[in-house]
Protein backbone atom coordinates (compact mmCIF):
# COMPACT_ATOMS: atom_id res chain seq x y z
CA UNK A 1 0.00 0.00 0.00
CA UNK A 2 1.27 3.47 -0.83
CA UNK A 3 1.84 5.53 2.31
CA UNK A 4 -0.25 8.70 2.56
CA UNK A 5 2.89 10.69 3.21
CA UNK A 6 6.44 9.60 2.65
CA UNK A 7 9.81 11.28 3.07
CA UNK A 8 12.90 9.52 1.70
CA UNK A 9 16.20 10.96 2.90
CA UNK A 10 14.70 14.45 2.83
CA UNK A 11 17.09 17.32 3.48
CA UNK A 12 16.43 21.04 3.60
CA UNK A 13 19.13 23.65 3.98
CA UNK A 14 18.74 27.40 4.51
CA UNK A 15 22.10 28.72 3.33
CA UNK A 16 24.71 26.91 5.41
CA UNK A 17 22.17 25.79 8.05
CA UNK A 18 20.74 22.30 7.58
CA UNK A 19 17.27 22.38 9.15
CA UNK A 20 16.20 18.88 8.08
CA UNK A 21 18.93 16.30 7.54
CA UNK A 22 18.25 13.01 5.69
CA UNK A 23 14.86 12.34 7.28
CA UNK A 24 12.83 9.23 6.45
CA UNK A 25 9.16 9.16 7.42
CA UNK A 26 6.07 7.27 6.30
CA UNK A 27 2.47 7.63 7.43
CA UNK A 28 -0.15 4.99 6.57
CA UNK A 29 -3.95 5.22 6.81
CA UNK A 30 -5.19 4.93 10.39
CA UNK A 31 -1.81 5.79 11.91
CA UNK A 32 -1.22 8.64 14.35
CA UNK A 33 2.45 9.61 14.08
CA UNK A 34 3.77 11.93 16.79
CA UNK A 35 6.59 14.21 15.72
CA UNK A 36 8.60 15.25 18.77
CA UNK A 37 11.53 17.61 19.02
CA UNK A 38 12.76 20.69 20.82
CA UNK A 39 12.25 24.10 19.20
CA UNK A 40 14.59 24.26 16.23
CA UNK A 41 14.75 20.47 15.77
CA UNK A 42 13.28 20.77 12.27
CA UNK A 43 9.65 19.73 12.82
CA UNK A 44 8.05 22.82 11.30
CA UNK A 45 10.39 22.76 8.27
CA UNK A 46 9.45 19.12 7.68
CA UNK A 47 5.74 19.96 7.94
CA UNK A 48 6.12 22.85 5.50
CA UNK A 49 7.72 20.48 2.98
CA UNK A 50 4.84 18.01 3.38
CA UNK A 51 2.34 20.82 2.80
CA UNK A 52 4.18 21.83 -0.35
CA UNK A 53 5.08 25.25 1.05
CA UNK A 54 8.80 24.52 0.90
CA UNK A 55 10.87 22.42 -1.51
CA UNK A 56 13.31 19.80 -0.28
CA UNK A 57 16.97 20.57 -1.06
CA UNK A 58 17.53 16.84 -1.55
CA UNK A 59 15.56 13.64 -1.14
CA UNK A 60 11.98 12.88 -2.00
CA UNK A 61 8.67 14.04 -0.52
CA UNK A 62 5.62 12.10 -1.70
CA UNK A 63 1.99 12.66 -0.80
CA UNK A 64 -0.46 9.98 -1.91
CA UNK A 65 2.34 8.80 -4.19
CA UNK A 66 2.82 12.18 -5.88
CA UNK A 67 4.99 15.25 -5.35
CA UNK A 68 3.28 17.91 -3.16
CA UNK A 69 0.96 20.12 -5.21
CA UNK A 70 -2.34 21.93 -5.00
CA UNK A 71 -4.06 18.63 -5.75
CA UNK A 72 -2.39 16.90 -2.82
CA UNK A 73 -3.09 19.90 -0.54
CA UNK A 74 -6.79 19.35 -1.20
CA UNK A 75 -6.57 15.97 0.54
CA UNK A 76 -4.82 17.38 3.64
CA UNK A 77 -6.40 18.91 6.73
CA UNK A 78 -3.98 21.25 8.48
CA UNK A 79 -4.17 22.94 11.87
CA UNK A 80 -1.19 25.30 12.23
CA UNK A 81 0.11 26.51 15.60
CA UNK A 82 -1.59 29.86 15.00
CA UNK A 83 -4.86 28.01 14.18
CA UNK A 84 -5.20 29.50 10.68
CA UNK A 85 -8.58 31.12 11.31
CA UNK A 86 -9.59 34.71 10.53
CA UNK A 87 -9.98 36.49 13.87
CA UNK A 88 -12.49 39.03 12.58
CA UNK A 89 -14.77 36.47 10.92
CA UNK A 90 -17.27 34.42 12.90
CA UNK A 91 -16.91 30.66 13.32
CA UNK A 92 -19.63 30.08 10.70
CA UNK A 93 -17.99 32.53 8.26
CA UNK A 94 -14.58 30.90 8.69
CA UNK A 95 -16.04 27.46 7.96
CA UNK A 96 -17.99 28.73 4.95
CA UNK A 97 -14.84 30.34 3.58
CA UNK A 98 -12.80 27.16 3.98
CA UNK A 99 -15.59 25.18 2.32
CA UNK A 100 -15.40 27.40 -0.76
CA UNK A 101 -11.61 27.24 -0.88
CA UNK A 102 -11.73 23.44 -0.81
CA UNK A 103 -14.38 23.43 -3.54
CA UNK A 104 -17.39 22.39 -1.49
CA UNK A 105 -20.85 22.92 -2.90
CA UNK A 106 -21.62 25.69 -0.44
CA UNK A 107 -24.20 23.70 1.48
CA UNK A 108 -23.60 23.17 5.17
CA UNK A 109 -23.19 19.43 4.84
CA UNK A 110 -21.28 18.85 8.02
CA UNK A 111 -22.92 21.20 10.45
CA UNK A 112 -21.27 22.36 13.62
CA UNK A 113 -20.41 20.03 16.49
CA UNK A 114 -22.68 20.64 19.48
CA UNK A 115 -19.84 22.23 21.45
CA UNK A 116 -19.42 24.92 18.76
CA UNK A 117 -23.06 25.75 18.03
CA UNK A 118 -23.42 28.47 20.67
CA UNK A 119 -20.37 30.20 19.15
CA UNK A 120 -21.34 30.04 15.45
CA UNK A 121 -21.94 33.79 15.22
CA UNK A 122 -19.02 34.85 17.45
CA UNK A 123 -15.87 36.33 15.92
CA UNK A 124 -12.98 33.89 16.33
CA UNK A 125 -10.84 36.61 17.94
CA UNK A 126 -13.32 36.79 20.84
CA UNK A 127 -13.43 33.02 21.51
CA UNK A 128 -11.82 31.26 24.46
CA UNK A 129 -8.73 29.39 23.24
CA UNK A 130 -10.23 25.92 23.69
CA UNK A 131 -13.25 26.83 21.56
CA UNK A 132 -11.05 28.43 18.89
CA UNK A 133 -8.99 25.23 18.71
CA UNK A 134 -12.15 23.17 18.34
CA UNK A 135 -13.21 25.49 15.47
CA UNK A 136 -9.82 25.05 13.77
CA UNK A 137 -10.22 21.25 14.02
CA UNK A 138 -13.72 21.43 12.56
CA UNK A 139 -12.44 23.52 9.66
CA UNK A 140 -9.49 21.18 9.01
CA UNK A 141 -11.74 18.10 9.02
CA UNK A 142 -14.66 19.55 7.07
CA UNK A 143 -13.44 18.30 3.67
CA UNK A 144 -12.78 14.77 5.01
CA UNK A 145 -9.04 14.86 4.44
CA UNK A 146 -7.01 11.67 3.98
CA UNK A 147 -4.10 13.16 5.90
CA UNK A 148 -4.31 15.40 8.97
CA UNK A 149 -1.33 17.57 9.93
CA UNK A 150 -1.61 19.11 13.39
CA UNK A 151 1.06 21.45 14.76
CA UNK A 152 0.81 21.61 18.57
CA UNK A 153 -2.97 21.28 18.40
CA UNK A 154 -3.72 21.37 22.13
CA UNK A 155 -1.26 23.95 23.51
CA UNK A 156 -2.74 26.02 26.34
CA UNK A 157 -5.99 24.01 26.57
CA UNK A 158 -7.37 22.51 29.82
CA UNK A 159 -7.23 18.72 30.30
CA UNK A 160 -10.86 17.91 29.49
CA UNK A 161 -10.84 20.04 26.33
CA UNK A 162 -7.55 18.36 25.40
CA UNK A 163 -9.07 14.91 25.87
CA UNK A 164 -12.03 15.91 23.68
CA UNK A 165 -9.71 17.16 20.91
CA UNK A 166 -7.85 13.84 21.05
CA UNK A 167 -11.15 11.98 20.64
CA UNK A 168 -11.61 13.90 17.38
CA UNK A 169 -8.11 12.94 16.24
CA UNK A 170 -8.65 9.26 17.05
CA UNK A 171 -12.06 9.27 15.35
CA UNK A 172 -10.43 10.60 12.17
CA UNK A 173 -7.73 7.92 12.37
CA UNK A 174 -10.29 5.17 12.96
CA UNK A 175 -12.14 6.41 9.88
CA UNK A 176 -8.93 5.80 7.91
CA UNK A 177 -7.10 9.12 7.92
CA UNK A 178 -3.39 9.28 8.63
CA UNK A 179 -2.31 11.84 11.23
CA UNK A 180 0.96 13.67 11.81
CA UNK A 181 0.92 15.59 15.08
CA UNK A 182 3.57 17.62 16.88
CA UNK A 183 3.35 18.14 20.61
CA UNK A 184 5.47 19.24 23.55
CA UNK A 185 3.19 17.37 25.88
CA UNK A 186 4.58 13.91 26.53
CA UNK A 187 1.36 12.37 27.71
CA UNK A 188 -0.15 13.18 24.33
CA UNK A 189 2.76 11.40 22.70
CA UNK A 190 1.41 8.24 24.32
CA UNK A 191 -1.78 8.67 22.26
CA UNK A 192 0.24 8.13 19.09
CA UNK A 193 0.63 4.80 17.31
CA UNK A 194 4.24 5.70 16.61
CA UNK A 195 6.68 8.45 17.57
CA UNK A 196 9.44 10.08 15.56
CA UNK A 197 11.90 12.07 17.68
CA UNK A 198 13.93 14.76 15.93
CA UNK A 199 17.00 16.64 17.14
CA UNK A 200 19.18 19.01 15.14
CA UNK A 201 17.33 18.13 11.93
CA UNK A 202 17.70 14.36 12.24
CA UNK A 203 15.55 11.49 13.40
CA UNK A 204 17.21 10.29 16.63
CA UNK A 205 14.59 7.78 17.76
CA UNK A 206 11.52 6.09 16.35
CA UNK A 207 8.95 3.64 17.71
CA UNK A 208 6.21 3.39 20.30
CA UNK A 209 6.48 5.44 23.50
CA UNK A 210 7.20 2.23 25.46
CA UNK A 211 9.86 1.20 22.96
CA UNK A 212 11.63 4.55 23.08
CA UNK A 213 11.64 4.59 26.89
CA UNK A 214 12.73 0.93 27.07
CA UNK A 215 14.04 -0.40 30.36
CA UNK A 216 15.94 2.76 31.27
CA UNK A 217 15.76 4.08 34.82
CA UNK A 218 16.21 7.43 36.53
CA UNK A 219 17.73 8.15 39.92
CA UNK A 220 15.24 9.64 42.39
CA UNK A 221 16.33 11.41 45.58
CA UNK A 222 14.06 11.97 48.57
CA UNK A 223 15.80 14.37 50.92
CA UNK A 224 14.11 16.27 53.74
CA UNK A 225 16.17 19.28 52.72
CA UNK A 226 15.62 19.15 48.95
CA UNK A 227 17.07 22.60 48.42
CA UNK A 228 20.41 21.50 49.89
CA UNK A 229 20.30 18.32 47.81
CA UNK A 230 19.74 20.35 44.61
CA UNK A 231 22.75 22.48 45.46
CA UNK A 232 25.03 19.47 46.03
CA UNK A 233 23.91 17.56 42.94
CA UNK A 234 24.19 20.64 40.74
CA UNK A 235 27.61 21.49 42.16
CA UNK A 236 28.75 18.04 41.01
CA UNK A 237 27.78 18.97 37.47
CA UNK A 238 24.58 16.90 37.33
CA UNK A 239 21.12 18.20 36.57
CA UNK A 240 18.43 17.70 39.21
CA UNK A 241 14.77 18.16 38.30
CA UNK A 242 12.35 18.96 41.09
CA UNK A 243 9.26 16.72 41.23
CA UNK A 244 7.11 17.50 44.27
CA UNK A 245 9.73 17.37 46.98
CA UNK A 246 11.64 14.58 45.22
CA UNK A 247 14.54 15.20 42.87
CA UNK A 248 15.01 13.28 39.65
CA UNK A 249 18.52 13.03 38.24
CA UNK A 250 18.20 11.57 34.72
CA UNK A 251 21.31 10.02 33.25
CA UNK A 252 23.17 9.73 36.57
CA UNK A 253 24.28 6.50 38.28
CA UNK A 254 22.71 5.88 41.72
CA UNK A 255 26.13 5.24 43.26
CA UNK A 256 27.40 8.63 42.06
CA UNK A 257 24.44 10.47 43.53
CA UNK A 258 24.70 8.52 46.80
CA UNK A 259 28.40 9.39 47.04
CA UNK A 260 27.66 13.10 46.56
CA UNK A 261 25.02 13.16 49.29
CA UNK A 262 26.90 10.93 51.75
CA UNK A 263 30.02 13.05 51.23
CA UNK A 264 28.08 16.05 52.47
CA UNK A 265 26.39 14.03 55.24
CA UNK A 266 22.96 14.92 53.87
CA UNK A 267 20.33 12.35 54.90
CA UNK A 268 18.49 11.16 51.78
CA UNK A 269 16.94 8.10 50.21
CA UNK A 270 18.29 7.36 46.73
CA UNK A 271 16.45 4.87 44.53
CA UNK A 272 15.57 4.28 40.88
CA UNK A 273 12.30 4.57 38.99
CA UNK A 274 11.46 3.96 35.34
CA UNK A 275 12.54 6.86 33.16
CA UNK A 276 9.67 9.05 31.95
CA UNK A 277 9.16 9.72 28.25
CA UNK A 278 9.96 13.37 28.92
CA UNK A 279 13.30 12.46 30.53
CA UNK A 280 14.16 10.11 27.67
CA UNK A 281 13.20 12.81 25.19
CA UNK A 282 15.43 15.23 27.05
CA UNK A 283 18.39 12.87 26.79
CA UNK A 284 17.75 12.29 23.09
CA UNK A 285 17.48 16.01 22.41
CA UNK A 286 20.74 16.72 24.22
CA UNK A 287 22.53 13.82 22.55
CA UNK A 288 21.18 14.81 19.13
CA UNK A 289 22.99 18.11 19.38
CA UNK A 290 26.24 16.32 20.20
CA UNK A 291 27.75 14.55 17.17
CA UNK A 292 29.96 12.28 19.29
CA UNK A 293 27.08 10.78 21.25
CA UNK A 294 26.10 7.12 20.75
CA UNK A 295 22.45 8.22 20.88
CA UNK A 296 22.88 10.11 17.67
CA UNK A 297 21.77 7.86 14.81
CA UNK A 298 21.41 8.36 11.08
CA UNK A 299 23.99 7.89 8.39
CA UNK A 300 26.37 10.41 6.96
CA UNK A 301 27.73 13.59 8.44
CA UNK A 302 26.29 16.97 7.50
CA UNK A 303 28.17 18.46 4.55
Amino acid at each position, binding site marked *: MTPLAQCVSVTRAFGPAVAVDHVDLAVSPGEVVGLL*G*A*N*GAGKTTLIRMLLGLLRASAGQVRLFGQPPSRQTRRRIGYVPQGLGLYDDLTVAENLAFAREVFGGDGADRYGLPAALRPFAQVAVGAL*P*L*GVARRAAFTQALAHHPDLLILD*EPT*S*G*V*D*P*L*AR*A*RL*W*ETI*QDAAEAGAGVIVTT*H*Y*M*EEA*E*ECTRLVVMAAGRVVAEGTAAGIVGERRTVVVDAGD*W*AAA*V*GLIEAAGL*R*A*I*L*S*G*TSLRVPGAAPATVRRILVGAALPARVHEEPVTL*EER*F*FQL*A*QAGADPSSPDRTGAGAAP
Partner: protein
Amino acid sequence: MNDSVNDWGLAGVSVRYGRTLALDDVSLRAVPGRIAAVVGGDGAGKTTLLRCAAGALPPASGRAATPGIRQTGYLSPSGGIYPDLTVDENLSFRAAAYGLRAPQARERVAEHLDRTGLAAARGRLAAHLSGGMRKKLGVIAAMLPGPALLVLDEPTTGVDPVSRADLWWLIAQAAAGGAAVLFSTTYLDEAQRAGHVLVLDAGRPLASGTPAEITAAVPGTIRLCPARPTGDPQRRRAWRRAGQWRLWEPPGAPPSETVQRGEAVPPDLQDAVVIAALAREAA
Protein backbone atom coordinates in the same frame (compact mmCIF):
# COMPACT_ATOMS: atom_id res chain seq x y z
CA MET B 1 5.01 24.17 58.31
CA ASN B 2 5.25 27.92 58.07
CA ASP B 3 2.66 30.22 59.58
CA SER B 4 4.97 33.16 60.05
CA VAL B 5 4.07 36.72 59.16
CA ASN B 6 6.31 36.34 56.10
CA ASP B 7 3.56 34.58 54.16
CA TRP B 8 2.22 36.40 51.16
CA GLY B 9 -0.81 35.68 49.07
CA LEU B 10 -4.55 36.16 48.85
CA ALA B 11 -7.31 35.83 51.43
CA GLY B 12 -10.95 35.83 50.28
CA VAL B 13 -10.19 37.85 47.17
CA SER B 14 -12.86 38.82 44.63
CA VAL B 15 -12.34 40.82 41.45
CA ARG B 16 -14.93 42.26 39.08
CA TYR B 17 -14.47 43.44 35.50
CA GLY B 18 -17.63 45.47 34.94
CA ARG B 19 -20.46 43.03 35.62
CA THR B 20 -18.25 39.94 35.32
CA LEU B 21 -17.04 38.32 38.51
CA ALA B 22 -13.53 37.29 37.46
CA LEU B 23 -12.50 35.95 40.87
CA ASP B 24 -14.96 34.84 43.51
CA ASP B 25 -13.66 34.53 47.08
CA VAL B 26 -10.29 32.93 46.31
CA SER B 27 -7.52 32.32 48.84
CA LEU B 28 -3.97 31.16 48.19
CA ARG B 29 -0.96 31.33 50.49
CA ALA B 30 2.51 32.00 49.16
CA VAL B 31 4.98 30.45 51.59
CA PRO B 32 8.73 31.17 51.46
CA GLY B 33 10.68 28.28 49.93
CA ARG B 34 7.54 26.65 48.56
CA ILE B 35 6.06 26.41 45.09
CA ALA B 36 2.32 26.77 44.59
CA ALA B 37 0.57 26.11 41.27
CA VAL B 38 -2.61 27.66 39.91
CA VAL B 39 -4.29 25.51 37.28
CA GLY B 40 -7.41 25.95 35.20
CA GLY B 41 -8.50 26.35 31.60
CA ASP B 42 -8.52 29.42 29.45
CA GLY B 43 -10.63 32.09 31.19
CA ALA B 44 -10.58 30.38 34.60
CA GLY B 45 -9.12 33.47 36.28
CA LYS B 46 -5.47 32.43 36.59
CA THR B 47 -4.05 35.67 35.20
CA THR B 48 -6.35 37.83 37.33
CA LEU B 49 -5.38 35.86 40.43
CA LEU B 50 -1.65 36.21 39.76
CA ARG B 51 -1.98 39.92 39.00
CA CYS B 52 -3.63 40.37 42.41
CA ALA B 53 -0.97 38.25 44.12
CA ALA B 54 1.78 40.32 42.48
CA GLY B 55 0.15 43.55 43.64
CA ALA B 56 -0.55 44.64 40.05
CA LEU B 57 -4.33 44.63 40.49
CA PRO B 58 -6.18 45.68 43.66
CA PRO B 59 -8.97 43.26 44.61
CA ALA B 60 -12.57 44.48 44.90
CA SER B 61 -12.78 42.68 48.23
CA GLY B 62 -10.55 40.47 50.34
CA ARG B 63 -6.88 40.94 51.07
CA ALA B 64 -3.73 40.63 48.96
CA ALA B 65 -0.46 40.57 50.92
CA THR B 66 2.72 41.26 48.96
CA PRO B 67 6.24 42.10 50.09
CA GLY B 68 6.15 45.29 48.02
CA ILE B 69 7.03 46.00 44.43
CA ARG B 70 10.82 45.83 44.85
CA GLN B 71 10.61 42.43 46.51
CA THR B 72 8.17 40.98 43.97
CA GLY B 73 9.24 39.36 40.71
CA TYR B 74 6.40 39.07 38.19
CA LEU B 75 6.30 37.38 34.80
CA SER B 76 3.25 38.81 33.05
CA PRO B 77 1.46 36.87 30.28
CA SER B 78 3.28 38.98 27.68
CA GLY B 79 6.59 38.32 29.45
CA GLY B 80 7.45 41.99 30.00
CA ILE B 81 10.29 41.72 27.49
CA TYR B 82 10.93 44.44 24.91
CA PRO B 83 11.36 42.81 21.49
CA ASP B 84 13.48 45.67 20.13
CA LEU B 85 16.02 45.51 22.97
CA THR B 86 18.74 42.88 23.24
CA VAL B 87 18.82 40.30 26.02
CA ASP B 88 21.40 42.38 27.90
CA GLU B 89 19.51 45.63 27.37
CA ASN B 90 16.30 44.07 28.65
CA LEU B 91 18.08 42.91 31.79
CA SER B 92 19.81 46.28 32.35
CA PHE B 93 16.52 48.08 31.97
CA ARG B 94 14.78 45.78 34.42
CA ALA B 95 17.68 46.02 36.88
CA ALA B 96 17.45 49.83 36.77
CA ALA B 97 13.70 49.62 37.40
CA TYR B 98 14.40 47.53 40.51
CA GLY B 99 17.05 50.04 41.60
CA LEU B 100 19.91 47.54 41.27
CA ARG B 101 23.42 48.63 40.38
CA ALA B 102 24.77 47.21 37.12
CA PRO B 103 27.62 45.05 38.54
CA GLN B 104 25.29 43.60 41.16
CA ALA B 105 22.68 42.79 38.52
CA ARG B 106 25.28 41.24 36.22
CA GLU B 107 26.52 38.99 38.96
CA ARG B 108 23.01 37.86 39.80
CA VAL B 109 22.08 36.79 36.29
CA ALA B 110 25.40 35.38 35.06
CA GLU B 111 24.81 31.83 36.26
CA HIS B 112 21.16 31.86 35.23
CA LEU B 113 22.00 32.94 31.70
CA ASP B 114 24.82 30.46 31.49
CA ARG B 115 22.85 27.53 32.76
CA THR B 116 19.78 28.10 30.56
CA GLY B 117 21.66 28.57 27.31
CA LEU B 118 21.04 32.31 27.04
CA ALA B 119 24.62 33.44 27.66
CA ALA B 120 25.49 33.07 23.97
CA ALA B 121 22.47 35.19 23.01
CA ARG B 122 23.17 38.24 25.21
CA GLY B 123 23.59 40.55 22.24
CA ARG B 124 20.59 39.20 20.34
CA LEU B 125 17.38 41.20 19.96
CA ALA B 126 14.62 39.65 22.07
CA ALA B 127 12.43 39.63 18.95
CA HIS B 128 14.83 37.05 17.47
CA LEU B 129 14.67 34.64 20.44
CA SER B 130 12.64 31.42 20.30
CA GLY B 131 9.50 31.28 22.45
CA GLY B 132 11.26 29.16 25.07
CA MET B 133 14.27 31.51 25.24
CA ARG B 134 12.00 34.54 25.63
CA LYS B 135 10.19 32.85 28.54
CA LYS B 136 13.52 32.03 30.17
CA LEU B 137 14.64 35.64 29.78
CA GLY B 138 11.35 36.80 31.31
CA VAL B 139 11.79 34.54 34.34
CA ILE B 140 15.44 35.53 34.78
CA ALA B 141 14.40 39.20 34.64
CA ALA B 142 11.70 38.58 37.24
CA MET B 143 14.29 36.89 39.49
CA LEU B 144 16.69 39.87 39.23
CA PRO B 145 15.83 41.53 42.55
CA GLY B 146 16.21 38.21 44.41
CA PRO B 147 12.51 38.59 45.19
CA ALA B 148 10.77 37.36 48.32
CA LEU B 149 7.77 36.58 46.11
CA LEU B 150 8.04 35.26 42.55
CA VAL B 151 4.82 35.25 40.49
CA LEU B 152 4.97 33.54 37.09
CA ASP B 153 2.03 33.58 34.65
CA GLU B 154 2.22 30.42 32.49
CA PRO B 155 6.00 30.30 32.24
CA THR B 156 5.99 26.97 30.35
CA THR B 157 3.00 27.13 27.97
CA GLY B 158 4.04 26.27 24.42
CA VAL B 159 7.63 25.69 25.53
CA ASP B 160 9.48 22.56 24.41
CA PRO B 161 10.57 20.02 27.06
CA VAL B 162 14.24 21.06 26.96
CA SER B 163 13.47 24.71 27.69
CA ARG B 164 10.83 23.60 30.17
CA ALA B 165 13.50 21.76 32.16
CA ASP B 166 15.58 24.98 32.16
CA LEU B 167 12.57 26.94 33.42
CA TRP B 168 12.04 24.37 36.17
CA TRP B 169 15.65 24.73 37.14
CA LEU B 170 15.13 28.49 37.52
CA ILE B 171 11.94 27.98 39.54
CA ALA B 172 13.70 25.48 41.83
CA GLN B 173 16.61 27.91 42.26
CA ALA B 174 14.25 30.67 43.34
CA ALA B 175 12.44 28.41 45.83
CA ALA B 176 15.70 26.97 47.15
CA GLY B 177 16.85 30.57 47.69
CA GLY B 178 13.83 31.17 49.92
CA ALA B 179 11.38 32.85 47.55
CA ALA B 180 7.69 32.06 47.73
CA VAL B 181 6.80 30.96 44.19
CA LEU B 182 3.35 31.12 42.60
CA PHE B 183 2.93 29.96 39.01
CA SER B 184 0.11 29.08 36.68
CA THR B 185 0.11 26.25 34.18
CA THR B 186 -2.13 24.12 31.98
CA TYR B 187 0.24 21.15 32.41
CA LEU B 188 -1.00 19.05 35.29
CA ASP B 189 2.22 17.04 35.54
CA GLU B 190 3.96 20.30 36.42
CA ALA B 191 1.35 21.22 38.98
CA GLN B 192 1.91 17.78 40.52
CA ARG B 193 5.45 18.94 41.34
CA ALA B 194 4.18 21.88 43.38
CA GLY B 195 3.71 21.71 47.14
CA HIS B 196 0.27 23.30 46.89
CA VAL B 197 -2.22 23.37 44.02
CA LEU B 198 -5.24 25.61 43.47
CA VAL B 199 -7.67 24.51 40.75
CA LEU B 200 -9.69 27.41 39.38
CA ASP B 201 -12.81 27.27 37.25
CA ALA B 202 -14.78 30.33 36.14
CA GLY B 203 -13.16 32.38 38.91
CA ARG B 204 -14.05 29.93 41.68
CA PRO B 205 -11.76 27.51 43.49
CA LEU B 206 -12.67 23.95 42.49
CA ALA B 207 -10.04 22.37 44.71
CA SER B 208 -7.12 23.49 46.83
CA GLY B 209 -4.46 21.57 48.72
CA THR B 210 -1.44 19.38 48.21
CA PRO B 211 -1.69 17.18 45.10
CA ALA B 212 -2.30 14.21 47.42
CA GLU B 213 -5.12 16.00 49.26
CA ILE B 214 -6.81 16.95 45.99
CA THR B 215 -6.65 13.46 44.52
CA ALA B 216 -7.85 11.92 47.81
CA ALA B 217 -10.95 14.13 47.67
CA VAL B 218 -12.02 12.99 44.18
CA PRO B 219 -15.57 11.61 44.45
CA GLY B 220 -16.46 8.20 42.97
CA THR B 221 -14.27 5.83 40.99
CA ILE B 222 -12.21 5.93 37.80
CA ARG B 223 -12.12 2.81 35.66
CA LEU B 224 -10.06 1.95 32.63
CA CYS B 225 -12.30 0.74 29.82
CA PRO B 226 -11.18 -1.60 27.05
CA ALA B 227 -13.28 0.32 24.52
CA ARG B 228 -15.04 3.65 24.24
CA PRO B 229 -18.09 3.59 26.53
CA THR B 230 -21.35 4.03 24.66
CA GLY B 231 -24.73 5.35 25.76
CA ASP B 232 -25.45 8.31 27.99
CA PRO B 233 -24.38 9.34 30.53
CA GLN B 234 -21.35 7.01 30.33
CA ARG B 235 -20.21 8.45 27.02
CA ARG B 236 -20.09 11.94 28.51
CA ARG B 237 -18.27 10.69 31.61
CA ALA B 238 -15.53 9.02 29.58
CA TRP B 239 -12.35 10.58 28.28
CA ARG B 240 -9.18 9.49 26.57
CA ARG B 241 -5.89 9.63 28.30
CA ALA B 242 -2.50 8.29 27.21
CA GLY B 243 -4.08 5.92 24.70
CA GLN B 244 -6.76 4.51 27.02
CA TRP B 245 -10.38 5.26 27.85
CA ARG B 246 -11.21 6.28 31.38
CA LEU B 247 -14.69 6.33 32.83
CA TRP B 248 -15.77 8.28 35.87
CA GLU B 249 -18.42 6.60 38.02
CA PRO B 250 -19.84 9.20 40.42
CA PRO B 251 -20.67 8.00 43.94
CA GLY B 252 -23.97 6.10 43.98
CA ALA B 253 -24.23 5.90 40.18
CA PRO B 254 -25.66 2.53 39.12
CA PRO B 255 -23.14 0.52 37.06
CA SER B 256 -24.09 0.50 33.41
CA GLU B 257 -24.84 -2.73 31.57
CA THR B 258 -23.59 -1.33 28.27
CA VAL B 259 -20.08 -0.60 29.48
CA GLN B 260 -17.31 -3.14 29.85
CA ARG B 261 -15.75 -2.07 33.12
CA GLY B 262 -12.05 -2.53 33.55
CA GLU B 263 -9.91 -2.11 36.63
CA ALA B 264 -10.30 0.87 38.94
CA VAL B 265 -7.30 3.23 38.98
CA PRO B 266 -6.35 5.79 41.62
CA PRO B 267 -6.82 9.34 40.33
CA ASP B 268 -3.91 11.71 39.85
CA LEU B 269 -4.13 15.46 39.63
CA GLN B 270 -5.07 15.44 35.95
CA ASP B 271 -7.93 13.00 36.59
CA ALA B 272 -9.07 15.19 39.50
CA VAL B 273 -9.25 18.26 37.25
CA VAL B 274 -11.05 16.38 34.47
CA ILE B 275 -13.60 14.98 36.94
CA ALA B 276 -14.20 18.41 38.47
CA ALA B 277 -14.95 19.69 34.95
CA LEU B 278 -17.21 16.68 34.18
CA ALA B 279 -19.10 17.19 37.44
CA ARG B 280 -19.63 20.85 36.55
CA GLU B 281 -20.83 19.93 33.03
CA ALA B 282 -23.36 17.57 34.56
CA ALA B 283 -24.62 20.16 37.05
